[in-house]
């Protein structure tokens, strides 16, 4: 190392300036650990956060996911005030309408609803006719039924990240943007130093919040995590007057679609044949396939013009559940990765839990089911409801 490399001491270095990294920074600072740096290789929310579908769903099929989502949703409900945000995170609770076309899917939904009710998420079961009362122009052909939870919704991912960033910054957190982490140095199984393009940072704690690049970051400390990155594409239409309140979603069709407060419709589609990797180019095939499916499910959308398409990375684990917290492989190495496409909606509660664990505080929710060791132990937490 060159001597002129800036060396500073930090209590923690967070790698990744997405919603997860910024939220963890804030939750640490709020609990007294303010000597923290967030390192982001581009700008804030430039990765998966700023490219996501913006949905906030509590209708999950696993108790731990339901609780993470419910708690996060409650935080979002009051976020403008709790983070003293001078803009608006545009959180809107128009509900999520989940569609089931097959018997299998319907049975799974009914099972999920039972579990959701036990955990305070009061989802309603709807017949196709009742689903039409929520979205009058919904094509119910072939529809078995739907579930609806009115407190699901969506928020602006840029603004949520910005709100955490501004609140963390006020508390003294340092943000190094356009700065890349080149390596992490460990000694005797402990974190010692983070080497960045902006100089070296001495620290005993590192948080991997690198989203689509989490595997590469973990590799720097010699930890192999079973995640792959996978492109998911999305498009947005011109804004029109309010015509649809909830997010409409089908796991079988692999789609989700919502009308934003701004009036545009945002929609995405999962491609089961998507090759793994960091490619985030847009394709015309997606635009065609998305258009076909959505104009079938929501026919009046035919008249809306597509304005823009883009893509982002899911960071996917074998059980579609995130990898959270410390690992016994390296002391001081914490992770909040592998969110498998739903990191934005559970980031608020996840950040609190990671901060609590780092500070040795009592955890508000048990996150041991999400630890990296579950893959070695063979205790996967399989979530049945993902796009």
């Amino acid at each position, binding site marked *: 190392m060159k001597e002129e490399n800036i060396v500073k001491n930090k209590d923690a270095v967070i790698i990744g300036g997405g919603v997860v990294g910024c939220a963890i920074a804030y939750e640490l600072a709020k609990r007294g650990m303010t000597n923290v740096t967030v390192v982001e290789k581009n*700008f*804030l*929310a*430039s990765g998966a956060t*700023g490219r996501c579908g913006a949905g906030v769903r509590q209708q999950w099929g696993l108790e731990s996911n339901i609780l993470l989502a419910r708690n996060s949703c409650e935080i979002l409900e009051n976020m403008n005030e709790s983070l003293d945000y001078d*803009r608006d995170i545009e959180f809107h609770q128009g509900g999520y309408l989940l569609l089931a076309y097959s018997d299998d899917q319907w049975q799974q939904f009914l099972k999920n609803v039972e579990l959701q009710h036990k955990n305070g998420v009061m989802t309603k079961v709807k017949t196709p006719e009742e689903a039409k009362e929520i979205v009058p122009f919904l094509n119910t052909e*072939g529809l078995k039924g739907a579930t609806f939870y009115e407190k699901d919704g969506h928020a602006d991912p*840029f*603004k949520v990240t*910005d709100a955490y960033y501004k609140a963390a910054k006020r508390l003294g957190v340092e943000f190094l943007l356009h700065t890349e982490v080149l390596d992490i140095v460990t000694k005797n199984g402990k974190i010692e130093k983070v080497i960045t393009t902006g100089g070296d940072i001495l620290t005993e704690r590192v948080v991997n919040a690198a989203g689509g690049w989490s595997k590469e970051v973990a590799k720097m400390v010699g930890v192999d995590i079973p995640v792959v990155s996978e492109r998911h594409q999305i498009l*947005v*239409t*011109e804004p029109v007057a309010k015509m649809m309140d909830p997010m409409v979603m089908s796991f079988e*069709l692999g789609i989700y679609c919502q009308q934003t407060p*701004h009036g545009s419709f945002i929609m995405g589609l999962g491609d089961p044949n998507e090759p793994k990797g960091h490619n985030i180019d*847009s394709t*015309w095939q997606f*635009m*065609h*396939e*998305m*258009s*076909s*499916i*959505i*104009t*079938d499910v929501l026919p009046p*959308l*035919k*008249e*809306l*013009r*597509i*304005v*823009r*398409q*883009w893509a982002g990375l899911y960071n996917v684990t074998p059980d579609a559940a995130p990898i959270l917290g410390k690992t016994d492989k390296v002391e001081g190495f914490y992770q909040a990765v592998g969110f498998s496409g739903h990191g934005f909606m559970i980031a608020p509660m996840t950040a609190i839990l990671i901060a609590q664990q780092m500070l040795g505080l009592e955890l508000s929710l048990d996150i041991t089911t999400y630890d990296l060791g579950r893959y070695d132990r063979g205790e996967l937490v399989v979530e049945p409801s993902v796009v």
Partner: protein
Amino acid sequence: MSKSKEKDIIVCRCSDVTLSEIRDLIKEGYTSVEEIKRITRAGMGPCQSKTCGPIIEREIAIMTGKPIEQFSPGKQRGPIKGVKLGTMAAANEGGKHREE
């Protein structure tokens, strides 16, 4: 230019963003077109920043002193002009999502 005049000048016509908002954000430290776009929606409308993009770049250059040539070019996204979802769907013959 007075602050009230800045508030009257629309920089992004698609999303109604004024010169005053742009200058306030640059002062706050949002010093790239990409960041300003994410906060204000400037450049996310039907014209895809063809009008506001260069104006915002110029404002950033003036206020930060960084030459425009050093800015990374923003991503240009398709479609070039708005296309109806129905037109796209009709063009996608053989789309058979329901039969699967």
